[in-house]
C-alpha cells in the first residue's frame, strides 16, 4: 500500500484535472466504487431536495391552504414568513418589536467587536457595560418614554442571545475561581471545587434546569421570589462555570512549572503570582477551547424550552401548535437548524482561525 502510494506519487505528479481525478477519486477499484456510489446517491438526492426546498416551495401565503395542497412536494416556507415576528421576538408587545430587534443587533455587534484582536483592550469592558445598559433600557423600558415590558414577555432570538451572553459573562469569573481552587494545595478548597465540578458535570443540564425551576423557590427565605428567567439563568451559569473551569484548568496545567518557580523566586505573593504571571498565560492558551465551550453553551440554551421559557426553539415549537400550521414541523425545525448553524458555524470558524493565529504567534516567540 505504502509502496503503491509512493509509486504513483513519483510517476504521475498530480497536475491537470485528469490527473487530479485519477489520484483523488479513481485510485484503485475500491475508491472507484465509492466515488460512483456517492455520485449516484447525490444525483438522486440533490435534485429532489432542490425541487422540494426551492422549486416547488411555497414562499408566501396568507393561510396554509396552498401549503397543504403542496404537502410532500414543496416546502412551506410561508410558515416562517408568516410567523417570523413571533419566532424572533416571542410574546414581546407587537408594536414594540423594534426594541428587541435593536437589542439583538447591538448584542451581535458586541460579540463581533470582541472577536477582533485589535479591540482586546481594557476599555472593551466599558463598551460592553455601555452596550448592556442600552440593551437593558431597550428591553425593560420604563424610562425615556418607553413602555415598561416585564421580562416574562421576553422571548425568541433575543432571549437565546441574552441567556448565552449573561451565562458566559457570569460563569467566566466563577470558573476562573473554581479552576484556581481545584489546583489549590489546600485539601478542603480543592475538595469543594472538585465536588462542585464533578457534581455539575455528572448530571444532565435538564436536571439542573428542573432543579432551578422547582427547587430554587424552596431554597429562598419566605417572601423572596425570583422569576423564571433568572432561575433558568442561575442554572445555566452554574452549568457553564463547571465546564469552563475544566477548560481553564487545562490552560493552568499547560503553564510550565518554571513560570511558577520564577514567580516564587521573585518573592511574589500567591495573588500577584496568579494575576501577573499565571493567569495571563493560562487564559491566552485557553481562548480557543473557551470559544468551543461558548458554542456548546449556545446550543445548550435551547434546553430552556423544557422548563417553559420562550427561547428561539420554543417560539418555533409553539407556532406549530396553531391549528393552521400543524404538520409543517420539518420546515420549522430546518429553519431553527439554519439559525443555530449560522451562529455556531461562524463561531467555530473564528475559533479555528484564532487557534492558528495564536499558534503562529507562539512559534514566532520561540524562534
Amino acid at each position: 500500500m505504502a509502496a503503491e502510494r509512493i509509486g504513483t506519487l513519483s510517476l504521475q505528479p498530480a497536475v491537470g484535472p485528469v490527473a487530479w481525478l485519477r489520484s483523488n477519486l479513481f485510485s484503485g477499484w475500491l475508491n472507484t466504487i465509492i466515488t460512483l456510489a456517492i455520485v449516484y446517491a447525490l444525483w438522486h438526492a440533490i435534485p429532489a431536495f432542490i425541487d422540494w426546498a426551492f422549486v416547488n416551495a411555497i414562499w408566501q401565503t396568507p393561510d396554509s391552504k396552498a401549503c397543504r395542497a403542496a404537502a410532500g412536494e414543496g416546502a412551506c416556507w410561508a410558515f416562517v414568513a408568516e410567523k417570523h415576528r413571533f419566532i424572533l421576538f416571542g410574546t414581546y408587545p407587537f408594536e414594540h418589536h423594534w426594541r428587541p430587534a435593536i437589542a439583538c443587533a447591538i448584542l451581535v455587534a458586541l460579540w463581533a467587536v470582541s472577536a477582533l484582536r485589535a479591540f482586546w483592550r481594557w476599555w472593551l469592558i466599558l463598551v460592553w457595560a455601555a452596550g448592556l445598559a442600552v440593551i437593558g433600557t431597550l428591553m425593560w423600558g420604563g424610562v425615556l418614554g418607553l413602555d415598561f415590558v416585564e421580562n416574562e414577555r421576553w422571548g425568541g432570538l433575543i432571549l437565546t442571545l441574552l441567556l448565552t451572553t449573561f451565562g458566559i459573562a457570569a460563569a467566566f469569573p466563577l470558573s476562573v475561581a473554581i479552576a484556581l481552587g481545584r489546583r489549590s494545595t489546600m485539601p478542603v478548597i480543592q475538595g469543594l471545587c472538585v465536588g462542585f465540578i464533578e457534581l455539575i458535570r455528572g448530571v444532565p443540564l435538564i436536571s439542573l434546569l428542573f432543579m432551578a425551576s422547582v427547587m430554587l423557590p424552596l431554597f429562598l427565605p419566605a417572601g423572596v421570589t425570583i422569576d423564571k428567567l433568572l432561575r433558568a439563568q442561575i442554572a445555566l451559569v452554574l452549568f457553564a462555570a463547571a465546564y469552563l473551569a475544566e477548560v481553564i484548568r487545562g490552560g493552568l496545567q499547560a503553564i510550565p512549572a518554571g513560570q511558577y518557580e520564577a514567580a516564587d523566586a521573585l518573592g511574589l505573593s500567591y495573588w500577584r503570582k496568579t494575576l501577573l504571571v499565571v493567569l495571563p498565560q493560562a487564559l491566552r492558551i485557553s481562548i480557543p477551547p473557551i470559544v468551543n465551550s461558548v458554542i456548546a453553551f449556545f446550543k445548550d440554551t435551547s434546553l430552556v424550552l423544557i422548563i417553559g421559557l420562550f427561547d428561539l426553539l420554543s417560539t418555533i415549537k409553539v407556532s406549530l401548535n396553531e391549528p393552521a400550521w400543524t404538520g409543517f414541523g420539518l420546515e420549522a425545525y430546518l429553519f431553527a437548524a439554519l439559525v443555530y448553524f449560522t451562529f455556531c458555524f461562524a463561531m467555530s470558524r473564528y475559533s479555528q482561525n484564532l487557534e492558528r493565529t495564536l499558534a503562529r504567534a507562539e512559534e514566532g516567540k520561540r524562534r
Partner: protein
Amino acid sequence: MKLSFNDPRFRSLVYQAAAIVSALAFGAYLVSNTLANLEERRIASGFAFLAREAGFAIGETTLIAYSAADSYLRALTVGLANTLRVSLIGIFAATVLGTLIGLARLSHNWLLARLAAAYVEFIRNVPLLVQLFLWYVLITENLPGSRGALEPLPGWYLSNRGIHFPVPEPHPAYAWMLGAFVAGTVAAIGCAWCGRRRQARTGRRPPVLEIALACVLVPPALAYFAGGAPTALSVPQLTGFNFTGGMTLTPEFAALGAGLVIYTAAFIAEIVRAGVLAIPYGQFEAAFALGLRRPLAMRLVVLPQALRVIVPPLTNQYLNLTKNSSLAVAIGYPDIVSIANTAMNQTGQSIEGIAIIMAVYLTISLSISAFMNWYNARIALRGG
C-alpha cells in the same frame, strides 16, 4: 507552627476552616429555608410516595412489565431501563458510525472525505434538541400511516407509528445459543491469555485471533443446529389500523436513538480522526520495514497507540450521550427524567424526584468513567 498569619501553614488552616464553616453555614441556611417552605406548603418529604400507585401508563415497557396500577418505584425502574436501553444501543451505534465517518474524513477519496467533513460540520453546529425534533416530525408527520407504510425491505415497514421489522419466533434454541456464546467468549478470553503467555515464553505468536473467533462463533452455531434449527419468523402484519407481530420501534425511540447516534457520531468521528493523525506516518513505515503487512501493522503498531489518544475523549462522549438521552422528555420517550418529572407533577415531591434523577446519572457517569479509567490504565504506557 506559629500562630501567626505570616506562617503559610497556619494561614492555610485558617482559610480552610473558613471555607468549611461558610460552606456548612450556606448549606444549613438552604436546608432551614427549604424545611420552612415545605412546612408552609404542607408537603411531606421522604420517599414513602415510591410505594404508592403511580396511576399513569407508560408507552415503552419492552424490558420490564408495567401497568398503571404498579407503584412509582416500578415506574421509575421502567424509566431507568429505558434510559439504559437507548444509551447502550446509542453508544454502540455511535461508536461504529463515528469511527466509519472519522476514517472516511481521512480517506484519499476526495468526494468521500468532503462528504464526511460536511456531515461533521453540519451536525456539530446544530443543537441536539433541534435535531431530535426534526427526526421526530420526520417520522410522525412525514411518513405515511400504517395502511400506506413504506416497505424498504421485505417484511420491514416504516410508518408514522414507528419502525416494524421481523424477528425470530421465540424458541428454546436461542437460549442455548446465548449460553454457548457466553461460554465461547470465556474460552476466547482464556485462549488470548494463553496465547500471550506462549508468545512471551517462546517468541512465537499462536494464531490467537482465528482460534478466539472460532471459540465465539462455532458453539452458538452448533447449539442452533442441535436445537432443531428454528427458522420461524414473526413478521409484522397489518391488522386493522396497526401492525401486530414482529418487533416495533416506537417513533419516540427511533427519533431519540437516531438523534443521539447521529449527533454523537460527529464528535466521535473528530476524535478518531485526531487519534489516527496523532500517529506519525513513520510508525507505519517502521512496521513495514519490520516485515509486517498492513493489517498486522495497523493492529499491532498503530491502533494501540491511537487508542491511547482516543480513549479519554471517547469516554467523555459516552457520558455525554448518556446525559443527552435525558432530552427524551422533550419528545415524549419515557426515560428516567420524563417519568420522574411526571411523578413530581403528580405528587409534588420535587426534591425527591430531582434527587433520584441526579443519583441515577451520577451513578451512571461514575461507573462509565471508572470502567474507562480501568481500560485506559490497561492500554497506557507501562512504567512511564
